């Protein structure tokens, strides 16, 4: 008996690959919306919007202090309960069974990412020197204009490496979606593996697929980072005096 049935593994690769689009879909949706919400939350935190500031501190602590799997389950089981209560109170007739599991995954992953992104964006925004905002104010811009034109673009440059890491982490995290019945890479690998006890083969296939995707993404992000850094290096060729633009108080 051969240790690993390579033939079988290779033969089943296409079947497992069918889950890749779903994996990517979850990651992309969560990344995009998580980034938007994360940015809004970060701004609320930085400008200490009353009530919302405290709320978001608790929100971020909760999301980061509980496992993603648990969050997935909370949504998966919580939404039908919520809908039932809504049906009772408002006489609506929403049926939780009609909701695709994918939607639960989208929501739960987005909420999860937004908490982490909020912290990343908060750090990036703080890293942009306060002098930039002051200069923008002093030429008469409103805070909104200053953020949009001067501060946010610089904050994104600072945040870029972290964004890459977050996305790669997301790809791996999508493997948990099978617990709420989403048919992505992990789910497919499991189904095929259980069918004939080909565990080693199928999970190796799954591992290789994830490894390949993450490797490609890392190459992509490093390439983008290098391009940005080269642009910066060219601009910094004649940099002389002080690099920190902190206003001194007298």
């Amino acid at each position: 008996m051969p240790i690993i049935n390579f033939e079988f593994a290779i033969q089943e690769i296409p079947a497992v690959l069918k889950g890749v689009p779903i994996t990517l879909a979850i990651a992309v949706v969560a990344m995009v919306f998580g980034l938007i919400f994360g940015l809004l939350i970060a701004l609320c935190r930085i400008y200490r919007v009353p009530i919302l500031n405290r709320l978001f501190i608790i929100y971020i602590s909760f999301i980061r202090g509980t496992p993603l799997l648990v969050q997935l389950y909370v949504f998966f089981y919580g939404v039908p309960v919520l809908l039932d209560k809504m049906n009772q109170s408002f006489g609506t007739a929403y049926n939780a069974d009609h909701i695709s599991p994918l939607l639960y995954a989208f929501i739960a992953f987005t909420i999860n990412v937004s908490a982490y992104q909020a912290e990343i964006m908060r750090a990036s925004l703080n890293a942009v020197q306060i002098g930039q905002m002051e200069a923008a104010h002093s030429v008469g811009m409103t805070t909104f204009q200053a953020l949009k034109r001067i501060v946010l673009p610089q904050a994104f440059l600072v945040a870029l490496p972290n964004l890459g890491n977050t996305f790669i982490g997301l790809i791996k995290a999508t493997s948990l979606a099978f617990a709420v019945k989403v048919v992505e890479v992990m789910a497919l690998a499991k189904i095929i593996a259980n069918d004939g006890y080909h565990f080693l083969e199928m999970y190796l296939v799954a591992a290789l697929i994830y490894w390949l995707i993450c490797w490609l993404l890392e190459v992509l992000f490093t390439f983008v980072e290098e391009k940005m850094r080269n642009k910066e290096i060219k601009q910094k060729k004649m940099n002389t005096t002080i690099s920190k633009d902190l206003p001194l108080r007298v």
Partner: protein
Amino acid sequence: MSVMNDWFSLFIQVLDKLPITLFMLLISLVCSLVLGVAIAIVRIKRFTVLYQIATFYLSFCRSTPLLVQLFLVYFGLPQLLLAFQIDINSLDRMIFVLISLSLHNAAYLSEVVRSAYLAVGEDQFEAAYSVGMTYTQALWRVVLPQAFVLSLPNLGNNIIELLKDTSLAFTIGIIDIMGQVRIILGNNHGIGMFEIYVVISLIYWGTCILIEMVISTLEKVLKKGKVSLSKS
């Protein structure tokens, strides 16, 4: 007040299995620390062959989901070892979980250790040498104590991630706080999955907050009297 009683008894039932979760956390933390330090040393000193193996191992652990690694160890390892006539099917499930968690976490811990070591800097070694210490003395008395304090925030994050990683153990049958969902469902009338997972999430959250408090207290105690980079 029967609603309060329900929730209270739910908490008690979930907390009953918290020791199992903490057991997984502690054991895999210790094992991954040992392994992580070893890998960090290999990476710092760049012992050729081992360095290649370490890089390969790190890439694998960080580019594949923990779930896949867990399944590979639990389902795949016995299959692999069977070919060498080693039958590990009778081993307690917990061992597989601990192996998988330790291997996975060691990859991340090695980076925590390595960056803390590098952050202390060559200057400290040079100063130690100049008063006559050997490498080992310098390491133990000057560098490692500083590296440990520097690593605390990252170490704290690592421990918290490890705690959350343990939530996957139930998929291979471990009865920790996640694993006993079926049991609780059977015992409680009218309590649904949603309530159970709310309680579970609160317990994870509480434990994480406790860990954070311990780490920050440790940081404060160890940093007493030392100048830090930020203004207080």
